């Protein structure tokens, strides 16, 4: 890929932020539940710290500033200077939420979230007297480096004035200098790069050069340095070693050859033989010779290390290896292309199987065995490719934790989220589209399901309510459940509302399950007053339709005083669909199984006519609008004879039902979804298309759209197919 590497790293930074937020939130949950240990606190600290570090590199100043102040408080916690009370934990959780908001703001280049200052103030108040006296904000200046090597004379041609300042630098390494991997020769060379140097080496009189070791260094140097540089420039050369050498920097000339008195206080205290350097005889070197001396061997020998073994060097050559790379990042587009191709492969395999049979080779065992194996491999590949798009639901669940915190605070309830099966993997798109309905369900549970603390306690329950969010794989589908331990559905009240809103007749006989399902009817709201949370004009009907669009089903169960549970069953992927293959007017169509309630054969008397052209199906005491699928799609003008016809009873997104007359039910099978929108635009009543085993193209129906009042009917039909 030829994209800008910085843009890639930036994108990767935000992915990493999400991962860090995940571990941060995990750790905070542990802190909240059982206090955690020091490593838990470290995880929290490190996450914030790493986010700050990366953010600084990209100049996300608001994010850096927030993370820095948050980190400062966490650092106090880590140092044991701050007590981990439950209030403190709550503030940390709030801080984490705001940190997440800041990350999102940085990512979308939008304004930082409001309210950050209040939370930071509250966090900082936790520190009380333990607060670091010095203003840390100043300490963490996003200065790019702690030192600089961009020295005049290094890059620029020095403009030599007549009178250049002359510096004299006394430098004698101590053992720690070599022990820390620094090298005196390199420092002398860096000085030589600053300007004209003349180096005098001080050798103690009683020293044999062979006795000068990295463990007991005795050599020292006086460097006469001439050029346009400041003392700061020179000190920068010694930045890494000021604490591990004796150093003296003076301007102008003491008597030539006279050693410079050391000015470093620590150095003086540490000098075991202070007179040694005075006794030393100067040994002169010029900058040329010192540079020449600094060849490859010298650092190693001077540092007391063996020269690098060529064999080890070779083993070192593992270029660009990312040793523990457990994941690769791939463009979603590429994965989708693969998913699409595998879909083609599945279709192709089915067509091949059919051709083989038609060619009369169905009896040939080797052909059939090969075909069988091909089919199994194709299915395996399909499953494998689908798994690439699968992601754990954990991040989604973590978002819900925040929704609960905010929702419960808004209505003065105490609610805790418990999660199960966070590692369950679901198609990425399904996860993305599940966020909104799940958010609404969670808000609904907090608002209507969980009681206020006093009511709970009066009922003998813990003041704190629990909402359990769980995910699991069941029978090739994903089951997601939202369960609360609240009061359960108040069925008399629900019934009352449904009657008052005209949703059901006053004398309707409804089972408990039927009453519960009234919640999914459009416009239904049990809130006695519009609450800040769920009373936003969005009802459970919207939740249900969002889940239906994903090929899912949602059911509800409730027990008075024990709680309510919503169960969402979803397909593992959006690329294939369980469908019922039907024939209508010589056309083959696929009806999504998720929308089918039941199938039946019509008997005389089941159909009643209302008005001129509207027919309804009388089924178990209910009247359901009846449509002839062939007419509805324009395949034929007149409906087939209703008697003895086969009907498919479908549910619609709004919970209402419709019956569709078809000629024949062929089979139930999984089909690969092929979008039509790109080529044909949206077609009323048609969701997509698929290719069946015999190569035939079949439309996949969208029953709710099909029976919508705007669908063509009666005389206005248009011929769609010849």
């Amino acid at each position, binding site marked *: 890929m030829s994209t800008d590497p910085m843009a890639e*790293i930036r994108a*990767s930074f935000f992915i990493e932020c999400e991962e860090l937020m995940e571990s941060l939130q995990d750790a905070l949950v542990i802190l909240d539940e059982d206090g955690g240990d020091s490593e838990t606190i470290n995880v929290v600290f490190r996450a914030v710290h790493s986010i700050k570090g990366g953010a600084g590199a990209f100049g996300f100043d608001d994010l850096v500033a927030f993370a820095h102040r948050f980190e400062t408080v966490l650092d106090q916690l880590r140092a044991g200077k701050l007590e981990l009370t439950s209030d403190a934990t709550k503030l940390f959780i709030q801080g984490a939420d705001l940190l997440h908001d800041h990350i999102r703001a940085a990512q979308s280049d939008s304004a930082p979230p409001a309210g950050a200052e209040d939370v930071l103030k509250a966090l900082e108040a936790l520190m009380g007297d333990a607060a670091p006296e010095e203003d840390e904000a100043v*300490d963490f200046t996003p200065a*790019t*480096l702690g030192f600089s090597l961009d020295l005049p004379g290094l890059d620029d041609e020095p403009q030599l004035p007549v009178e250049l300042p002359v510096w004299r630098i006394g430098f004698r390494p101590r053992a720690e200098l070599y*022990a820390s991997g620094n090298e005196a020769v390199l420092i002398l060379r860096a000085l030589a790069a600053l300007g004209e140097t003349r180096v005098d080496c001080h050798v103690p009189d009683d020293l044999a050069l062979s006795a000068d070791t990295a463990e007991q260094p005795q050599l020292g140097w006086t460097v006469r340095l001439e050029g346009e540089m400041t003392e700061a420039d020179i000190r920068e050369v010694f930045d*890494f070693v000021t604490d591990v050498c004796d150093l003296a920097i003076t301007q102008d000339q003491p008597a030539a050859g006279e050693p410079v008195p050391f000015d470093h206080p620590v150095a003086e205290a540490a000098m075991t033989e202070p007179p040694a350097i005075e006794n030393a005889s100067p040994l002169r070197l010029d900058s040329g010779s010192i540079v020449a001396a600094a060849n490859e061997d010298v650092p190693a020998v001077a*540092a007391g290390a063996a020269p690098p073994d060529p064999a080890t060097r070779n083993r070192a050559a593992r270029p660009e290896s990312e040793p*523990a790379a457990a994941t690769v990042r791939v463009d979603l587009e590429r994965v989708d292309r693969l998913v699409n191709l595998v879909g083609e492969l599945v279709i192709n395999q089915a067509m091949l199987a059919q051709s083989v049979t038609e060619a009369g080779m169905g009896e040939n065992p080797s052909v059939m065995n090969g075909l069988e194996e091909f089919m199994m491999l194709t299915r395996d590949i399909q499953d494998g490719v689908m798994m690439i798009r699968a992601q754990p639901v954990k991040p989604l669940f973590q978002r819900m934790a925040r929704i609960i915190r905010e929702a419960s605070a808004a209505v003065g309830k105490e609610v805790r989220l418990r999660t199960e099966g966070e590692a369950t993997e679901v198609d990425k798109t399904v996860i993305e589209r599940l966020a909104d309905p799940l958010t609404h369900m969670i808000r609904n549970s907090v608002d209507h399901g969980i009681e206020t603390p006093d009511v709970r306690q009066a009922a003998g329950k813990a003041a704190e309510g629990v909402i359990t969010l769980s995910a699991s794989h069941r029978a090739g589908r994903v089951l997601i459940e939202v369960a609360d331990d609240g009061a359960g559905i108040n069925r008399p009240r629900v019934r009352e509302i449904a009657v008052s809103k005209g949703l059901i007749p006053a004398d309707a006989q409804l089972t408990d399950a039927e009453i519960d399902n009234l919640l999914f009817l459009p416009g239904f709201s049990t809130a006695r007053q519009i609450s800040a949370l769920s009373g936003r004009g969005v009802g459970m009907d919207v939740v249900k339709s969002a889940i239906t669009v994903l090929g899912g089903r949602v059911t509800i169960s409730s027990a008075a005083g024990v709680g309510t549970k919503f169960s969402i069953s979803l397909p593992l992927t959006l690329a294939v669909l369980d469908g019922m293959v039907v024939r209508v007017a010589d056309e083959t169509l696929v009806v999504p199984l998720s929308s089918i309630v039941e199938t039946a054969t019509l008997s005389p008397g089941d159909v009643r006519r209302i008005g001129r052209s509207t027919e309804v199906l009388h089924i178990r005491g209910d009247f359901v609008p009846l449509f002839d699928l062939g007419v509805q799609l324009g395949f034929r003008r007149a409906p087939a004879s209703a008697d003895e016809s086969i009907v498919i009873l479908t549910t619609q997104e709004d919970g209402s039902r419709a019956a569709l007359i078809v000629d024949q039910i062929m089979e139930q099978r999984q089909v690969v979804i092929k979008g039509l929108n790109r080529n044909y635009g949206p077609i009323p009543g048609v969701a997509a298309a698929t290719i069946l085993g015999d190569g035939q193209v079949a439309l996949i129906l969208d029953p709710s759209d099909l029976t919508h009042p705007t669908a063509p009917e009666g005389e206005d039909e248009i011929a769609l197919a010849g």
Partner: protein
Amino acid sequence: MSLNILAVDDSRTMRDMVRLALAAAGMTVTTADDGVHGLEVLEGMEPDAIISDINMPRLDGFGFIRAVREIDRMRATPILVLTTESAPELRARARDAGATGWIVKPFDPHKLVKTIQMVTG
């Protein structure tokens, strides 16, 4: 000869940035996720210099540097600490552990390269 650098940091972003900066200067970068991982990688390589973060899981930068200095063949290998903190106390601790020098994050890629060139000679 191109320099072999080991960069140890638990942040992928930081590893990527260091890699980008150094690769642009013709250096070869190997990375490790934390101190323990860094020591494992060092069993199979002898870098010309090591860049290490401080705050890392399992084994932090101080512990990592101390352990590297215990390895005979790496007693003199330059080790630069890459850290967001610039507190003198932190430098002192890094020095005690055996660090050669330090670079404050966020770093200027150009200067990181120059620093490595300086400490490796």
